[in-house]
Structures are given as structure tokens and as C-alpha cells.
């Protein structure tokens, strides 16, 4: 969510300059001071600290005095850490499966919800509901729903002759998390798409109708291109969200069984807050963040490139 706002704000900052606002001297600064001091204390200083910490060897036991700079040792260690690469691999699988699935299903649902439907407002609210409920209530519910022996999910799947072990199985634990992520995110995506669809260029559809265009070609030529900015926005926010969250995993699987759900965010949480290796955890966090940033920029570029080719 933040990213798109940033982009929008960035473009506006340029156009708005010189709009004849009177200089207000230090008074303007006073307006900003409360927020700025807080942001400084709780965001900027921690941010600088995390960068500094990434170049230190420090754990809780050694105390503040035990902090020693070790140059790029942490990053060298990360490169050789099988646990890190395992976590990166899992995270990639998780992101590459759950994010496109959520976006595609969200788009289909958004298009469906854009039609006249009986009880449309209620339908929208229902699909949105998982998005506003806390992760513990949702996690506990799904954990029991996916109980391998007697859970409701396997009772239903029994009709198809499959009985996944879900969170008890190292093969099924990650798919279980993906099911939950898709269930939780589809309604949010559909509502974002819905508001974009309502801004879609109506005249173009009318023109296409006159030309006798098929529903598919209307989607391909008009709807999909007009939804592209929304799709990029959703991809970026979902990629960031999926790669940073550790709450659900800490709650349900603690990274297990074994290390089957130790994604990179959980790996960092474990390193920092269970083993209290603050320096190494900071380095992992930093590397991951830069990685996600690159991944989202690539997504952004790829989509933008395709949009230009289409025109």
C-alpha cells in the first residue's frame, strides 16, 4: 500500500511546486516537529541502526559492551549459510505460487462482482472479511480446519480420496500456508480491481460492442490494459507482504515440521528473537529487503515494458 502512495506523492511533489504558498518560516517546521521527532526516534534511527548492526557480531548475552564490528563477515556467512538459502528457496516458492494465484483469482472475482448481482454489497463484504480479521483467530481456525485426521477440510477432501497431512506434513505445510494466503487475499484484490473497473473507459466498450467484439477480445484489448497499474500495485504489495510476514508461521508451524516452513522472514525472526544473534539477523533482514526491492522493481519494469509493447 505504501509504495503506490509514495509514487503518487512523488509525482505530485514536482507539479505542486511554486503554487504560490506563502513562506511560513519556522512555523511550518513546528507543525511537522511532533511527527518528525517520532519518525526519527522510531523509524529513522532504528533504520540506521539495522544497517550498522549488519556489520557487527553481537548477541544479547555479550551486552552492549560486547558489540564488535566484523566488516562483511555476516554477509560472507549468509552466502555460505544453507539455512539462509533454504529459507530463500521456500520464500520464492511461497511468493511465486501464492501471489499470482491471489491476483488472478482476485481479478476473476472482481470482474464477477462488477456485474449486477443479487445482494452484491453483501457478497463484496463476505469476500473482504478474511482481510480484516487478526492473524491469530484465522490461524487457529485453519489449524483446526486442517487437522489431518478429523478436520473439516479433509472430511470434504475424503470425497476425492485425498487426505493431505497439512501442517503435520513437511510436504503439505507450505501448500497449507498458500491456501490460507489465497483465501485471505483474494477478497482484498477483488475490491481493488472492482474500484479500478468502475473507472474503466465506458466509451471504448460501447465502441467495441458496435464493432461486434467478443467478450474475450474486449477483456484483452480494453479491460486488461486499463487494469495494468492496479495489477502492478497488487503484485508489489503482495510480494512485499508475502516475503515479510512471520506472524502466521510463528503461530502455527514455528517453521516446521523440521524446516519445511522456515521462510526468510521467519528465519530472521528466529535468528534475532530466539537465538538473539542481532548482528546476523540484521544482515539477513537487510539482504532480504534489498532482494525484495530488486524483485519488485523487476516486476514493475517487466510489466511496464509489456504495456509499452502492447500499444
Amino acid at each position, binding site marked *: 500500500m505504501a509504495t*503506490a502512495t509514495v509514487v503518487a506523492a512523488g509525482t505530485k511533489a514536482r507539479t505542486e511546486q511554486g503554487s504560490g504558498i506563502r513562506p511560513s518560516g519556522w512555523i*511550518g517546521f513546528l507543525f*511537522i516537529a511532533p511527527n518528525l521527532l517520532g519518525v526519527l526516534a522510531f523509524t529513522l534511527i532504528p533504520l540506521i541502526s539495522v544497517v550498522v548492526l549488519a556489520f557487527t557480531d553481537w548477541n544479547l548475552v555479550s551486552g552492549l559492551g560486547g558489540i564488535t564490528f566484523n566488516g562483511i563477515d555476516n554477509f560472507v556467512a549468509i552466502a555460505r549459510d544453507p539455512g539462509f538459502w533454504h529459507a530463500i528457496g521456500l520464500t520464492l516458492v511461497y511468493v511465486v505460487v501464492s501471489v499470482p494465484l491471489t491476483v488472478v483469482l482476485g481479478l476473476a472475482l472482481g470482474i464477477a462482482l462488477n456485474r449486477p448481482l443479487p445482494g452484491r454489497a453483501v*457478497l463484496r463484504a463476505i469476500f*473482504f472479511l478474511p482481510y480484516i480479521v487478526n492473524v491469530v483467530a484465522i490461524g487457529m481456525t485453519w489449524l483446526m480446519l486442517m487437522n489431518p485426521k478429523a478436520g*473439516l477440510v479433509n472430511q470434504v477432501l475424503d470425497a476425492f480420496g485425498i487426505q493431505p497431512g497439512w501442517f503435520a506434513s513437511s510436504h503439505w505445510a507450505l501448500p497449507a500456508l498458500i491456501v490460507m494466503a489465497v483465501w485471505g487475499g483474494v477478497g482484498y484484490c477483488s475490491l481493488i480491481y472492482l474500484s479500478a473497473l468502475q473507472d474503466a473507459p465506458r466509451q471504448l466498450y460501447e465502441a467495441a460492442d458496435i464493432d461486434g467484439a467478443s467478450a474475450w477480445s474486449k477483456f484483452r484489448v480494453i479491460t486488461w490494459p486499463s487494469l495494468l497499474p492496479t495489477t502492478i500495485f497488487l503484485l508489489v504489495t503482495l510480494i*512485499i507482504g508475502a516475503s515479510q510476514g512471520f506472524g502466521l508461521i510463528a503461530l502455527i508451524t514455528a517453521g516446521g515440521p523440521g524446516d519445511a516452513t522456515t521462510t526468510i522472514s521467519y528465519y530472521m525472526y528466529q535468528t534475532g528473537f530466539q537465538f538473539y544473534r542481532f548482528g546476523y539477523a540484521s544482515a539477513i533482514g537487510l539482504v532480504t529487503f534489498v532482494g525484495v526491492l530488486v524483485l519488485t522493481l523487476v516486476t514493475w519494469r517487466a510489466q511496464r515494458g509489456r504495456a509499452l509493447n502492447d500499444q
Partner: protein
Amino acid sequence: MTSKYSKWIWGVPLWILAIAFLAPFAWMISTALKADVDAYKIPMQWIPDPFQWDNFSTVLSGATSVLPAFGRSVFVALLRVAGELITATMAGYAFARMSFKGRDKLFQLYLATAIIPAQLLLVPRFIYFQKLGLYDTLWALILPGMFTVLGTFLMRQFFVSQPAEFAEAARMDGANEWRVFTRIYLPLATPVMSALGILAFVWSWNDYETPLVLISNPDRYTLPLSLTNFVDEQGQIAPGLTMAASVISIVPVLIVFVVLQRRFIAAMTHTGIK
């Protein structure tokens, strides 16, 4: 004539899908009203028999009560919402409608930090709060939530779209900057402020990761953390109590959602994009 038909051709499958979507919530409520022995019955028993209302009295009273945690969550959410609204509105207004030295540089700094995920900052926050004696207190949850970059953006975006002429006219009449802000621009901002307030409330209410890291004493658990009280050392969940407490944890957000649905969805969907 076809449109009346097609309404149901799409409507029926969508409603079936919606009911499947709701199944986890239905299961939650059903289990909250059941004896634990009935929770995993095969086939699943949707209507509890007998109804076990005791689950709710257990999680609402005595040593197992989640009400203290509920109170702490309310306290944290109220202070965070109030703090964020005040500081973000003032800062957003100044970034949009006032000019002073270094404003644009400062704003660029804000832009740059906006994409930093909160998870990355947990390690230093953990260390600082320990040094400051704020670790394991509710202030560790409240303070960072009162001063947000994102809230400032949302407010700035709104104030930028407001005409400057209002201020010019008021200044002619001798109003000072604070008066111009509170009497002219602030009343216009109530819809955006309520959107930001809703967002801030939901984030605060549902936050699990921050208290997981910064709160360790069960006597200071906020509501999401307290839901884990009904899991024993071996990881065995007490289904009825956990689900009853979960239902209680959802109610406040649900009330805000139902009462302010339009504004709620607009806050969740529009603010990011526009």
C-alpha cells in the same frame, strides 16, 4: 429480459463460493459454542448439540478471562489512533500547504522510508526499548504507531488537493497559521481522517508480530497474543475456548466494518492507489 436471467446465472455460483468462503467463520462460531469432544466429530456437526455457552463465560471471567487483554488492546488502539491522527494531520498539512526551508528535502526523506517494512526495524526497536525500559510495556506498541510516515502521506495527499485561496482570505482577515489550519482546513479533512482512523485502528487491533517480539509478560498481552493462552505446553489447542476468544477478538473490527462499510472499504482500497 436476458439481464434478469444473467443476474442469477452469475449470482448463484458466486453465492455458493461466498458460502464456502465463510465456512471457516461458521466453523469458528460453531466450535465456540461446542464441547471440546464435539469439535472434531465426523461428520462435522454445524449446529452444536448441546450448546456450550460456558465457553464464553470461561473466556470472559476469572483467571482465563481475555477481558484485561481486550482492555489493553482498546487502550493501545485509542492512543495509536489519536496520536497518529494528530501528528499526521499536522505534518501532512505543513508538507502540503506551508512552505519552509528544507521542506522538500524532508519530504523526500519521508518518501524514502515509506517502503521500509516494519519487520526490518524490529531488532533495533527491541534493543532500544530494552535500554529505555519500555520493553515489555504497552508503550513499546503505542509509541511507534503514533508517528507514522504513511499517515502523513495520506493527509498530505488530501491537503495538496485543497485550494490555497481559503488560506489567503483568512490571512487577510488576520488569522494566524494555527487558526487557518484548525478552522479552515481541518474541518474539510474529516472524511480522510476517518479513513486514516479506521486503518490505524484495524492495524493496531490486529497487530500480532510487534507484541510477539516486544511483550513477554502474559499480564501485558494484547488480545491477539492472549488467544494463544488456550494452547497448552504440548501445542494442544482447547477448541471451544480458543474459538470463543477468537470470536470476541473479531467483534470490534466487525462492528466498525458493518457500521462504516462504505468508508471502510474505501479506506482499505482507495487510499493506497489514489
